[in-house]
């Protein structure tokens, strides 16, 4: 095992990490924080890495866990601050302006969990097992979440025209 992470490898994966962060948070400054925290943790926890897992899967795992933790922690605190908010801060992000693409628009409307699983499985090409490990879910949950995410995406891109979802065979 290497003594530390090679900067080259990290640089190569950086665009993928940034994309994952961007679609998890949908907010440029939070995405940047997430990328930064993820890299710091990766560099300081290199020793605890499971040598079996790919570097990419390991980094995605770190990022996803940090995202879930921060979301869980800040939810209640955020709610408190909404009371002190004179007007909603709905500044259109630069990103929104760029999204003219219908696929991305629909993707952006999915829940963060659905975005994460679609991105990992269909775009990054993670195996179901790797996805389960990264998200910290049993394989069965990954499959049902993937199915729901696909239906949700279908419904958004095709509106009412989408066929009724197939029942799962018990």
């Amino acid at each position, binding site marked *: 095992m290497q003594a530390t*992470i090679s*900067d080259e490898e*990290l*640089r190569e994966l*950086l*665009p*993928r990490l*940034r*994309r994952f962060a*961007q*679609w998890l948070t949908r907010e440029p400054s939070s995405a*940047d924080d997430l*990328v*930064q925290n993820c*890299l*710091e943790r990766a*560099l*300081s926890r290199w020793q605890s890495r499971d040598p079996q897992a790919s570097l990419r899967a390991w980094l995605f795992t770190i990022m996803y866990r940090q995202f879930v933790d*921060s979301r*869980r*922690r*800040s939810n*209640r*605190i*955020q*709610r*408190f*601050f909404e*009371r*002190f*908010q*004179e007007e909603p*801060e709905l500044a259109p992000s630069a990103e929104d302006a760029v999204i003219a*693409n219908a*696929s*991305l628009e629909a*993707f952006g409307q999915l829940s963060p969990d659905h975005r994460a699983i*679609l*991105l990992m*499985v*269909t*775009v990054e*090409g993670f*195996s*179901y097992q790797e996805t389960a490990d990264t998200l910290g879910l049993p394989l069965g949950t990954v*499959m049902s979440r*993937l*199915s729901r995410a*696909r239906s949700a*995406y*279908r419904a958004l*891109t095709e509106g009412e025209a*989408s*066929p009724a979802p*197939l029942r*799962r*065979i018990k």
Partner: protein
Amino acid sequence: MNTMRPSEDELHAYVDQQLDPQRRAAMESFLAASPEDAARVAAWRRDADALRTALAGTMSLPMNPAFDPAAIRRRMRMRTTRRWSMAASFVLVMGLSGMGGWFAHNTVMNRAAPPMQDAVDAYRVFATDSVHPVEWRPDANGGSDSGGDLQTWLGARLGRPMSLPDLGAYGFKLMGGRLLSTDDGPAALILYEDAAGQRVSFYLRPSSRTAPGTQGQRTDKGLQTRYWFRNGYGFAVVGRSSDPRTTEIQDAFPSAT
């Protein structure tokens, strides 16, 4: 009914190319005979292709030098160094205190009156008080520890409805609060306590003199203070600087943006 009918999971695995060759062949012959499923699978596949194409475009973000691994390593090293030098200066200050240096330091601090110093003072007075740190406890009326009464009480006095942040995730329970009067109006001091008796405070009061958007952090005499100003209020979170959870809690608060 076709007994060879694949499960929904297998349909997905087919789209995602995660079936072994044997099952894939079986799936292909099944789909050839089942146009409805074939259409569903084709639609999923189209969606996946569309997403791959669309998301490929979102990877070309402008390069951010802050994310370069070398820069991150440097920052992490600097932070460690800063922590050491802070510890060193603390030792120095403790050494000087015998010669009145500490007193001089204090005088300078008072004259400068850093933002939200009242929050730090309130922590020093009340968070260390073991007898009567708060004048209102969430369970004062036999209620739960949700802080409902305290919130109503504070809401009425501050003139705004409010619900209190929950710091349970960090091991801190809402202890209670008290109102203080300041030059800027009524201030609320909310204290949280962990099982070991460590306390963290959340403090807020109206603020008209400080520009909104002002924010910062300072560490002084073992206390770490994060403050920010927003919508006519000043906020501060104060805790022990030796406790790593202090920073975590402070990070969880959305500061001025």
